[in-house]
């Protein structure tokens, strides 16, 4: 039996303990807090909500150790990251124009049938661009892994054995939020997903984004920039078919039906799900069994409460 859960942000409305109680899980737990970067392992807040002991897997510290002790690997890793950044920059260049076409055609008032054709084509172009970008990211990651086989690489393998030992004694793996790329890269570097056996995975905010199929970055009103959501990475794929959106009420104009509809259609067939404070979603063996305060962004631009199947 596998349990996977996604939660909303935990800082102001912690929902971890009630969730564990509801689904009958008890510690000890392992935790990944690499997204907190230099604050990794500061589990005081988490400990208040966890019934048993929590062991931080220290993926951030371990990665720093790998980089410091293996400069050759570090250089290869840096090159990969540089290439990913460059790919992201180029993708954004195309994305700006592709999205502009979609938005302009939405406002177009010509012959209904002709306009509709163009709108569909513009949306297809946007979806194609996203998929193509995601494919290229996966290709680059696969080629890096094939070339360097990081999980079996000297120092990484040492750390990985320790991580496997720690995970072996824990029925629960908690994945906290924070910097989504740093978190995801550390999880990938040590092949944590491949070490899992029967552990229940409970992830929140960026943690939830990391365990989905793809990572979509979003904010409708950033202080700088255009605010166009972008595909940024392939996720670990431990939960399929959803795009988790932490802090959705804060980051997205959920009352703007046009924007919500566009967001939703862009990522179909995946469901774009809000993960605000207090929200939770639980799957058992791939079947959604429990939902609390999660909304699906519909094709028509509405928010529909998600219910277990």
């Amino acid at each position, binding site marked *: 039996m596998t349990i996977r859960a996604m939660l909303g*942000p935990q*800082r*102001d409305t912690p929902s971890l303990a009630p969730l564990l109680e509801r689904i009958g899980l008890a510690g000890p737990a392992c935790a990944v807090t690499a*997204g907190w*970067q*230099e*604050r990794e392992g500061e589990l005081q807040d988490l400990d208040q909500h966890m019934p048993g002991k929590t062991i931080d897997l220290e993926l951030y510290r371990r990665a720093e150790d790998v980089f410091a002790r293996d400069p050759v690997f570090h250089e290869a890793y840096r090159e990969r990251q540089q290439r990913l950044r460059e790919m992201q920059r180029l993708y954004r260049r195309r994305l700006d124009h592709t999205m502009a076409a979609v938005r302009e055609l939405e406002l177009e008032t010509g012959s209904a049938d002709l306009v509709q054709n163009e709108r569909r084509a513009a949306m297809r172009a946007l979806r194609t661009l996203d998929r193509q970008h995601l494919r290229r990211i996966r290709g680059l990651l696969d080629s890096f892994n094939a070339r360097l086989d990081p999980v079996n690489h000297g120092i990484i393998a040492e750390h990985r054995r320790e991580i496997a030992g720690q995970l072996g004694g824990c029925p629960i793996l908690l994945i906290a*939020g*924070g*910097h*989504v*790329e740093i978190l995801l890269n550390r999880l990938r570097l040590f092949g944590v997903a491949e070490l899992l056996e029967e552990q229940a995975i409970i992830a929140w*905010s*960026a943690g939830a*984004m990391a365990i989905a199929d793809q990572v979509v*970055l979003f*904010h409708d009103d*950033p*202080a*700088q*920039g255009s605010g166009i959501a972008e595909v940024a990475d392939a996720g670990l794929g431990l939960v399929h078919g959803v795009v988790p959106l*932490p*802090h959705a009420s804060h980051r997205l104009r959920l009352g703007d039906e046009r924007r919500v509809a566009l967001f939703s259609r862009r990522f179909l067939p995946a469901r774009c799900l809000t993960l605000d404070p207090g929200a939770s979603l639980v799957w058992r063996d791939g079947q959604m069994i429990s939902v609390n305060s999660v909304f699906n962004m519909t094709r028509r631009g509405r928010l529909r409460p998600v219910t277990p199947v």
Partner: protein
Amino acid sequence: MNRDLRELLEDGTPTAEAIDNFIAERAFPLADARGVTFIYRGEAETVLLRHWVYGLPSSQALERVPDTDLWYRFIELPPRSRIEYKFDVVSDEQNHWITDPLNPLTAEDPFGRNSVCRAFGYERPVWTLPETGSRPGVIEALNLHSRHLEGPREVLCYLPARFRRSRRYPLLVVHDGADFLRFADLRAVLDNLIERLEIPPMIVAMTQAGDRLQEYAGDARHAGFIAEELLPTLQRKLPLEDNPSRRALMGASFGAVASLATAWLYPGVFDRLLLLSGSFAFSDIGPHRRGPAFDPVVEFMNRFRMRPGRPARRVYLACGIYESLIYENRSIVPLLQDNDIQVRFHEVRDGHNWENWRDRLRDGLSWLFPGPLWMIYE
């Protein structure tokens, strides 16, 4: 005239009770899409609206509604404007400058307190408000002796929430820092923008001048203090990023001149500038007309304009269009751009005051130091 006021007056002289009700039910001054109607109630010989909107007469008489103690004055003010004002109430041939008794909104500056007029559509940005639940940074005093300025100096250092010595931070040096804290809510702004991930956690060193009209007027001794004394001290004591693009100077009015002058005299040390309503007075030919306090500023600006070089790589400028300095600020933009400096210039419907400068901080700081908003989901 505002429509509500016109309705009050259209049936002739309103009774005292009608005026009481009119006042009790509304916020003042009365703002609509066309402009603002200022209202004063009380006995006086004359009531004048005093404001600092460049381009309008700075003193405008309110009109008295006959046989009442109600006074009013309408001025056109575009939507989203914000201005500061006072009433000059003349009675017994004495002038009394007072804040608007019907308007609870006031703003402070080192010279006192003014009433604040928010035109139709202006709203105080939520990220300027204290007590929003953001994790608070701390402020520590740092004392050092300045050889350049020949005396002790106290600098206030803002350390962001969750400050770590193991991490390295960008640095922002703020001229008139204590005034920014007091009059522009700088601490709340930093706490909020960092919490919202719109700027990265940063260390902010807030300086205060002895004689700012001298020290901030393009004075090489002040620049020496900042670049040769303050910066190395901060680098020794605090975990700062070692990169000019992660260091900024900020200032308003004369403080903007001091920031520009420091960057110009020490190119490559501070690669980011945030310049608000800079007092960038200059003369192309003949004497300037801004008074003796500006003599050293004009001398510096003329030298700078002659040979601007590249004092920084990225400069954010903002200025109110109700300030006389808008001309000088507009003038400096092409000069900087011609020298391959990335410039963002923002003209706003506001005046030469601290709340204007406060409202610009999100745009300026997040452009100079973009935060991790896009990547962090806590």
